[in-house]
């Protein structure tokens, strides 16, 4: 092997490995987006449960977030991937639906979503609590049903408070996809490793993958900044800024 990079290895068409990397990157994006979306859904439900739910719901959610935040993502991924999908397919078999087949992408999305969900729960809980209670009370005083209050007032009003946390979660989601390399899901990191193994150009492929991740982070940063500025339009600090 040489230290001089052979950039022809990155060409899109074979024998270049560009396509493999891009497909891996695409998988990473799908994973991150799917897991993030699932996490946001779990997070909103979890936050609502923690704030408005019964004692038992609250405690269970507390256990969920605590376990997720105390156990390494890598371990959680293994646990959810092997144990989770096994339990799921056993449950469905027991219910007479036959074995469910969970493909790698779905499993990966579920795993990342569950991990993200715990953090998102905390993000949304904090954000909802940052909404002055009077605004929610005003909505109730106008006869809005609970779900409508949530949809029309609580969620949009908490968005500016949640966005910084949500931006961070997205960054974490994109990076956590790399962990799925460990269960053999061919996302960007594993693709880079396979390419590197086949060509022995380790430095080249890992640096390329790193650049892709970094580009994703930087672009996401810009987008989130924009969205945040938009969401903060109505807030006082927007005036000061």
């Amino acid at each position, binding site marked *: 092997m040489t230290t001089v990079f052979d950039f022809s290895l990155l060409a899109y068409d074979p024998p270049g490995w560009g396509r493999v990397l891009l497909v891996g990157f695409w998988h990473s994006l799908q994973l991150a987006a799917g897991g993030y979306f699932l996490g946001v859904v779990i997070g909103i439900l979890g936050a609502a449960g923690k704030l408005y739910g019964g004692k038992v719901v609250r405690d269970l959610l507390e256990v969920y977030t605590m376990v997720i935040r105390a156990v390494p993502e890598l371990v959680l991924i293994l646990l959810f991937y092997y144990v989770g999908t096994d339990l799921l397919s056993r449950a469905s078999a027991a219910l007479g639906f036959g074995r469910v087949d969970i493909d790698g992408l779905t499993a990966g999305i579920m795993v990342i979503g569950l991990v993200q969900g715990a953090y998102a729960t905390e993000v949304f809980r904090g954000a909802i609590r940052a909404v*002055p209670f*009077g*605004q929610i009370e005003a909505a109730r*005083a106008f*006869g*809005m*049903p609970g779900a409508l209050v949530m949809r029309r007032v609580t969620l949009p*009003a908490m968005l500016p408070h949640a966005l910084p946390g949500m931006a961070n979660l997205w960054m974490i989601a994109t990076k956590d996809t790399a962990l799925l390399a460990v269960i053999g899901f061919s996302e960007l990191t594993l693709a880079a490793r396979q390419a590197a193994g086949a060509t022995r150009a380790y430095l080249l492929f890992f640096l390329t993958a790193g650049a892709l991740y970094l580009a994703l982070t930087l672009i996401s940063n810009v987008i989130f900044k924009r969205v945040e500025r938009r969401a903060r339009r109505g*807030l006082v600090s927007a005036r000061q800024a």
Partner: protein
Amino acid sequence: MQQQAVTGDVTQPDGTAPSATAPAVEIRALRKSFSGVEVLKGISLTARQGDIVAIIGGSGSGKSTLLRCINLLEKPSAGEIAIQGEPYQLRPDKDGALVPVDRRQIQRIRAHLGMVFQSFNLWPHRTVLGNVIEVPIHVLKMPREAAIARARTLLERVGLGDKLDVYPSFLSGGQQQRAAIARVLAVDPLAMLFDEPTSALDPELVGEVLSVIRDLAAEHRTMLLVTHEMAFARDVATHVVFLRDGIIEEQGSPAQIFESPQSENLKQFIRSVA
């Protein structure tokens, strides 16, 4: 709830019997405890259509709690409340509070009770116009176009015709409170509830808001108004209710209350705020 049995029925300013208009808000034997401490100790009160009831009293006397019970933002411990003749259907829960039997009844009634808060509580993520059309569209299911047209008129009326697309946090306190009033007017409320609508405002802004309320009073809208502005209460109220320590200690026309207070406490209160 039987009309004639209502105690503490508000008498007309001239001290004659109640006029013939229908009751808009009726409260009977209302009690409210916060974790064991009784804050309202049996309040009965009727406000008829067009009545403007000023609720006065010292700090902690239960004024806000009374007002908040009227649209069930606080769950009473005992008693009955009826809006426009329709009593809330309540049942006691295990903590001893009265909770709605049917949430939808409460929501339906609430939609026609406009509450104006001390701290405005506009929704900061919507423009002024957005705040005003929110409830008509999403709760009252009014067509969007109609809601906007009406909101424009109302905002024009409270002097915010040029602030439609501004976000609330860019308004002064007085403007925010006027927007909040417009938001309440947009549901064409059976009764309006004001909880110290000017006490969070700088002195120079109070006037703006009071003059808007004065205009509303001139239209004979039913209003219940907690206020510390005695001059204003005397001026616009048709009835004044003096609350002390969770009971109505005295009530009557502004003239009765302010010129010839009976109880020692009311006398002292009027002295202290003068």
